[in-house]
């Protein structure tokens, strides 16, 4: 065995009522990129929280050895002092502070307590150079996209003389280009001797970048794969779900009916940037029983198109026509859209989809409460029955529907969101990134639910950044680029290359 930087042995961590980690072992070699995979709830994040001192020594049992020295971290500062830095999935930058201020936050370039701004900005510029972030160090963090904010986080880690960098789903919110840049950066850091532990759901990335992969399942270590050997995605998936997964997408035989929704010449302007056209003259139609994809890179205007159609919940200066079942309709509010049978499940469940402090049943009923009420009075037992029906039908893993949604895993939260919209009896469902941040097993379930919706005669529009997903579930796929619909392909014609051509097509004058 080569030089080992980190060894975690027999780690067991329990929360009240749940064993999150059960005798987990992890060995990381110096200077490698080590991926950790597992379904949501497998214990990946908990393991990293143990490692970084978020769960202090004494909260868990087992040993952590860093460079052969036993470690007992009491908090994050202890671990950071030894060069273990964790970057969480939700980025923790202060939006109003500059890049340089963020990088040295808590670690200010301040001899004798007075900040030396020249040194702060100069040092920041140097670190930014290392991570390939070409911006002015004094730019506020809020002016950066998610990809660049991620780079600021890494620069911040480098400023702490990181030896072991832990990234929790670093590319979850990034587009392909930013993801590729980040992965390149990780390779570069590896060559500089920095060891990386990366938690990711994106198996193609793991295959591209990882030197070894440890798979967790149900709080146990399943295996560690050496990625030098040719490990396939299916091989990793098999380890994660504990069985061979022949098909990542359920079989589905579409039964497509007549047109239910048509959007003509839809144009939307940005509410923040004056005069900017976000969606330009889009035409699109959906038929009953049809699953239609909407592909596009970040900023192509997919979400903006969907939300502006959904009762003008995004954008200003909206023009165009919407036809439902052949009749033109006007959707001025979200309420109008819901009444006309539209539903929009957001790409950001936690911020836009769920009331995280409320329970499952109140989230399920949120958009269709009037169906459960007579003259304003809610039948709460009926509400419980409906929600419990969805809990069982959708296989939402919770003891009952009084469980708070904030504590559910991503997949189960998404099922609550879908339940909410199914309960409104929508016949046009727009699902924006329906499987983002969801583990493989739950993804399969979501796909099955989508198929089931289509089988009930509903039209489903799936917006996704993952091309394999669109190719796997959709009967027809539109591609968007820079606010325009640049092409559409049927299931038979669709290939990743062809879609990517449409998605990168620049406006023709």
């Amino acid at each position, binding site marked *: 065995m080569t030089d080992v930087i980190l060894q975690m042995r027999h780690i067991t961590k329990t*929360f009240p*009522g749940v064993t999150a980690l059960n005798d987990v072992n992890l060995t990381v070699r110096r200077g490698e990129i080590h991926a950790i995979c597992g*379904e949501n*709830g497998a214990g990946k994040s908990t393991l990293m929280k143990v490692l970084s001192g978020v769960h202090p020594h004494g909260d868990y049992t087992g040993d952590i050895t860093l460079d052969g020295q036993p470690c007992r971290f009491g908090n994050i500062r202890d671990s950071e002092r030894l060069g273990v830095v964790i970057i969480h999935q939700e980025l923790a930058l202060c939006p109003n502070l500059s890049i340089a201020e963020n990088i040295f936050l808590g670690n200010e370039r301040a001899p004798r307590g007075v900040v030396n701004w020249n040194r702060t900005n100069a040092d920041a510029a140097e670190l930014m150079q290392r991570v390939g972030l070409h911006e002015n160090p004094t730019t506020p963090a809020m002016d950066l996209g998610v990809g660049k904010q991620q780079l600021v986080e890494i620069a911040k880690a480098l400023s702490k003389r990181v030896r072991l960098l832990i990234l929790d789903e670093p590319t979850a919110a990034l587009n392909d280009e930013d993801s590729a840049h980040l992965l390149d950066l990780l390779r570069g850091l590896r060559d500089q001797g920095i060891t990386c532990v990366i938690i990711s759901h994106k198996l193609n990335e793991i295959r591209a970048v990882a030197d070894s992969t440890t798979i967790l*399942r*149900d709080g146990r270590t399943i295996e560690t794969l050496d990625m030098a050997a040719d490990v396939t995605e299916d091989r990793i998936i098999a380890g994660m*779900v504990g*069985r061979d997964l*022949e*098909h990542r997408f*359920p079989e589905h035989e579409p039964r497509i009916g007549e047109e239910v929704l048509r959007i003509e010449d839809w144009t939307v302007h940005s509410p923040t940037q004056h005069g900017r056209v976000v969606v330009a003259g889009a035409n699109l139609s959906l038929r009953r029983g049809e699953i239609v994809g909407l592909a596009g890179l970040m900023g192509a205007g997919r979400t903006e198109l969907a939300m502006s159609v959904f009762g003008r*919940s995004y954008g200003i200066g909206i023009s165009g026509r919407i036809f439902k079942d052949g009749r033109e309709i006007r959707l001025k*509010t*979200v*309420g109008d*859209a819901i009444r006309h049978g539209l539903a929009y499940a*957001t790409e950001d469940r936690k*911020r*836009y*989809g769920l*009331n*995280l*402090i*409320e329970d499952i049943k*109140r989230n399920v*009923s*949120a*958009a269709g*409460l*009037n169906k459960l*009420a007579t003259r*304003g*009075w*809610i039948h*709460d*037992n009926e509400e*419980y*029955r*409906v929600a*419990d*029906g*969805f809990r*069982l*039908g*959708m*296989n939402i893993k919770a*003891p*009952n529907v009084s469980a*708070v949604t904030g*504590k559910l895993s991503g997949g189960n939260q998404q099922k609550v969101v879908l*339940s909410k919209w199914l309960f409104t009896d929508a016949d046009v469902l727009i699902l924006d990134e329906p499987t983002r941040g969801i583990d493989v*097993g*739950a993804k*399969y*379930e979501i796909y*099955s*639910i989508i*198929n*089931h*919706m289509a089988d009930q005669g509903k039209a489903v529009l799936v917006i996704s950044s993952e091309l394999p997903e669109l190719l796997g579930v959709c009967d027809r796929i539109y591609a968007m680029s820079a606010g325009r619909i640049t092409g559409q392909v049927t299931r038979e014609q669709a290939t990743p290359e062809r879609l990517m051509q449409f998605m990168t097509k620049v406006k023709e004058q």
Partner: protein
Amino acid sequence: MTSVGPTTGPSTAVPETTASEIAVRKAPDRFGGRLFSANLRQNGIYIAFALIIALFSVLTGGDLLAPQNISNLVVQNSYILILAIGMILIIIAGHIDLSAGSVLAVTGAISAELMVNNDVPWPLAILITLICGGLIGAWQGYWVAYFGIPAFIVTLAGMLVFRALTLAVLGNQGIGPFPDEVRTIANGFMPTYLGNIGLGPLDGADLFTLLLGLVFVAGIVVTQWRSRAGRMRYGQSVEPTALFVTKLAIAAVVVMTVVVQLARFKNLPWVLVLLAALVLAYSLLTDRVVFGRHIYAIGGNLNAATLSGIKVKSVTFWLFVNMGVLGAIAGIVFAGRLNQAGPTAGTGFELDAIAAAFIGGAAVQGGVGRVVGAITGGLIMGVINNGMSLIGAPTEQVMLFKGLVLLAAVAFDVFAKRRAGTAR
């Protein structure tokens, strides 16, 4: 987790086919401990209330629970409690109202101007005053809901503006006296209908009041029992029978104790009847009415509420209108009790109402809180005021104690949440 397989897609997403299969289930045993801690968190405020009452009962040698003192407690705190009902709704929605004290003052002044200086018949004057309160709320609600100015700013401005209007209406002096009917609402008692009874410890208690108390308790028991039975019929887990009966018994004993004491004094204060009606109505609003549910949805996640088709602006607007009307009710009660509308009326009352809401379990971020909690929070402060004045404590001690209780209540709530892991 891994039971999900390629072959086991969701069997169906239609609730009707599956719901009928749900059998009556009891909560699994391992949730027993959680059930207890959840109960503690929800009921911590009531336990604290009981402890504070016990403390001051001992310190005052029982004077706290004397018939006349209980009556005073209710009457003295009624207007704060009325404001607290409106305040908790606004706080649940994620807003705040700093103008409540000034609104109370200006509506009191308007009612005095109408009744005392212009001889408007009192029912009409009250109606006009309530409408004025609603208009004041509409003014503030417009700026908050439709113009998008934070409620903190709008109501801070309102605090100044409506105090200025109070001074303008009153010409910087108190106006009184009020008609007897209005004073009775604020300060008076229900008459004796059936005479007194003369047995043992109930000696001299009013029979009608006692019967009213019994009917009220019976009402609580029947509705709670029916609600529980309904939930069991739908196969929901309910709290164990022993716990349920204990809770009901405690509630019954508390209500009857208060009623007996009041019956021995001068019967029920009218303002208690008013308050009970408001608490009942607003509890139903928050628990069982779509509008109430929308308040929680907005406070819990504004974006999600908007995208669920909830008319966020309209709900917010009406919340402030409601607050204005409740402010007007409190204004009339307060003016009636003092028998004059004064320029400094209600100064600082908004802070008492806000404190009541937070002691009663509301969350600063919104989305959490109950009307009964706010009332309990208000009563806790009332008991502290009253109890400490009975033992002759100086004002600074009262303020100190109240401040610490507020801090402790919120600290406990934060602590409990962290323990429960929701604050992650």
